[in-house]
């Protein structure tokens, strides 16, 4: 699974990464997490409110930090 966190290193992005790690561990999913801080790339996903979360090329969440439960749901699909 390819996961991208879109954001410019704000505190919210770090929180998202932590939640994501917990969710992945609980679901036992092996995923590659890439942090993207290049603004041109971020916006090219249509995201303007960071942090954004992209799972397998699809934007799943913008402008907020989903909690572990929400993340598990997004990862499950």
């Amino acid at each position: 699974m390819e996961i991208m966190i879109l954001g410019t290193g704000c505190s919210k992005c770090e929180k998202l990464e932590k939640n994501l790690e917990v969710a992945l561990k609980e679901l036992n999913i092996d995923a590659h997490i890439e942090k993207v801080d290049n603004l041109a790339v971020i916006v090219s996903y249509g995201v303007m409110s960071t942090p954004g979360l992209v799972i397998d090329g699809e934007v799943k969440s913008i402008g907020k930090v989903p909690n572990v439960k929400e993340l598990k749901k997004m990862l499950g699909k």
Partner: protein
Amino acid sequence: MNIFTWLNDQLLKMKWLWDLVELLVEKVFGLSMGTRIGGSIHFFIYDAIKIFILLSLVIFIISFIQSYFPPEKTKKIIGRFKGLKGNIFGALLGTVTPFCSCSSIPIFIGFISAGLPLGATFSFLISSPMIDLASLMLLMSFFGTRIAIVYVALGLIVAVIGGIFISKLKMEKYVESYVWDVENVDIEIEKMNHKDRVEFAKEQVKDIVGRVWPYILVGVGIGAGIHNWVPQSIIERILGKGNPFSVLIATFIGIPIYADIFGTIPIAEALMAKGVGIGTVISFMMGVTTLSIPSLVMLSKVVKPRLLVAFVAIVTLGIVILGYGLNGFSFLLI
């Protein structure tokens, strides 16, 4: 006393809190309100608590409204309008789009890549940090409805006219070229229900209060210092109505500083009490909120120096003209 005056005094101006802190200062600390130390401690405690209560409440309400206008949607709305209308909608939506200076650059790139005119984008970028519904409510509480409305109305005018100037100067070539290469992508925005919006609003309160509290305490501290320790004569000489340069001085002190309206209000309040003109105070507040060194550093990543200089010059000029205009007409306001 009619019910509206009472409501205004107790709810917006929080007279109960004023009385309560007065009791604390006089009975618990044993300090007279008339002394400098007693007066400044009262100012600090009362203002700090009042701002935090108002801030939490106001951010909650505003965020709820803002959840209807994420930047991804704002982009589509502004895109529907051309010319002057684009500037006006850019300025108006700047007041309701959730905004922190860290998101100004992705918003800038997103707007430009969506083909929005540069002028409308700048109208949005000027109005966003300068005015929002939260500042309107805070200003109402501290300075009364009339000044609050004047601040918002004039802020919108600066944003619209500033955007028009930038579009007239045809400065598109001074936007960094990579910005034009970004492809415009519209994403499906997830639908939020009522519960999601409440949740979003709560998160925003936590996030914003957590981020701005140090600025507020510094602002209240400076306010308390001005209020009780700096002699009136000094403030009057520098910023008073007698000094023809007062607005210029206030604007140029305000510009490099990075703070939002919440930290600026206690300073403005103390300056007003010292007899500084309303125009001078508003120029100071607009200078602090709209332009700052960190925000210009960020903006310099997407625009070339010439456009950056034009932007700073236009906004500064707007703020200065406004300040002098308001000082001239202040008899209508107070």
